[in-house]
């Protein structure tokens, strides 16, 4: 395939710091290779801004291969852009037509304050994890593989939830800025496995309560989170976490 180039108009949220006021700035960018990734296109924009003596656009990124969960912002209303099952670092400019106008905004949630431009503080997710997203029993050295037999079905279903990279797209997509998909995926993969059983209900209650305390909303079943999730994690985990939560509260008296 021959390389071609396109022009795009970018409307980018610029905010110098958490407490500073933000606003949209519009940039015109020509000669963008259709083979470049979305983040490479932003690199190109930043190069241009630097040579003009302007502040580059801050955005978070690390692996650029869709596995770390660092990247992510909203493109024309869609977290991670228009494609399903992809992070913004894996989105390519061939996806857009020349002359496209793209509005880039950071994740919007009270619990995710903007640090700068398109970068938000997602440490709220760390707090949810710290509330119970682990097993507290120290098992010493790595045990023999298969010393605890786990069926293939359970293992692969647990992996579906464990595929969550914590990017925050679920929160960004939800009309309630709910962290339920993230939280329930983290609850869910441990609930599928024998190692997760002893703390199953205390974990579920603690993590969901923490998410609420941090200011994330509740679930209205609009299912936008699942559609926005780069790992396409199912909303069934929210339902399962809900079941364990109520069981924990009502039956187990937590």
């Amino acid at each position, binding site marked *: 395939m021959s390389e071609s180039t396109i022009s795009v108009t970018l*409307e980018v*949220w610029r905010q110098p710091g958490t407490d500073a006021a*933000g606003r*949209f700035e519009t940039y015109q960018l020509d000669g963008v290779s259709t083979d470049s990734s979305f983040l490479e296109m932003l690199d190109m924009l930043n190069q241009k801004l630097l040579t003009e003596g302007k502040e580059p656009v801050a955005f978070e990124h690390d692996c650029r291969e869709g596995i770390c969960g660092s990247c992510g912002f*909203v493109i*024309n*209303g*869609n977290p991670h852009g*228009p*494609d*399903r099952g992809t992070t913004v670092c894996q989105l390519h400019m061939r996806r857009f037509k020349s002359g496209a106008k793209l*509005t880039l*905004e950071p994740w*919007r*949630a*009270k*619990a*995710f*304050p903007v640090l700068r431009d398109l970068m938000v503080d997602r440490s709220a997710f760390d707090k949810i994890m710290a509330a119970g997203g682990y097993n507290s029993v120290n098992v010493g050295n790595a045990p023999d593989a298969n010393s605890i037999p786990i069926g293939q079905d359970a293992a692969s279903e647990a992996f579906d939830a464990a595929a969550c990279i914590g990017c925050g797209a679920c929160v960004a997509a939800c*009309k*309630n*800025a*709910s962290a339920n998909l993230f939280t329930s995926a983290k609850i869910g993969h441990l609930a599928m496995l024998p190692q997760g059983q002893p703390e199953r209900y205390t974990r579920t*209650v603690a993590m*969901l*309560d923490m998410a*609420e305390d941090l*200011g*994330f*909303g*509740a*679930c*209205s*079943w*609009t*299912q*936008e989170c*699942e*559609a*926005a999730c780069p790992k396409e994690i199912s*909303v*069934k985990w*929210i*339902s*399962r*976490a*809900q*079941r*364990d*939560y*109520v*069981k924990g*509260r*009502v039956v187990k*008296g*937590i």
Partner: protein
Amino acid sequence: MSWLKRTLSSSSGRKWLVALSGLGLILFLVIHLLGNLQIFLPDESFNEYAHHLHDGLLIVIGDVGLLVLFPLHIGLVIWLARENRKARGATGYKAPMTATKQKRSFARVLASKTTLYIGLVLLVFVAIHVWQFRLHHSEIGNLRGAILETLANPMWAIFYVLGSLATGWHVFHGFQAAFRSLGFTHNRFTPALVNLGTALALLFAIGFSSIALWIVIAQPHI
């Protein structure tokens, strides 16, 4: 009641109670529709049904049930909705959030995002409806006649058709969402429940509005 306090203290617990009360209200709607459809019967059977209902235990269970379920459902939803609204933060999105990557049908996505507001419409509808045919007609001599007379007025007929459609729309999203909130999810049964919810939504929308439409169009004799 400590379990109730614990449950109410969290949004997950509140969602659970919203789901339970919602399903209770749907059960009421099924019974209500079955009763109402007797208005199509020619003679006095509707009035007899109304009399039996009012003399029996069912009306007490219904009244008490509705007095508990309705305020519970609405109150908890408003409580949740206020928190949900705050969760977005001070700055919302510029790009319209109508953008979606969902593969579900347009109607389903729309229903999931509008059910809350349709619920507020229903609140007004139900208040007028209860006043009109329950409180205002505390003496139920000829309820059928009163209904036929009211709905012969096209304005009231339209009001009731819109109310019926709103009910259907609310149930269209609410029924399946309730099971999800209760923690019920299953590869095969969840799609079946989604379909059952659609069937119930159509049943309520068509069933209730058919009464108003029949009366305003056919103008049956009282």
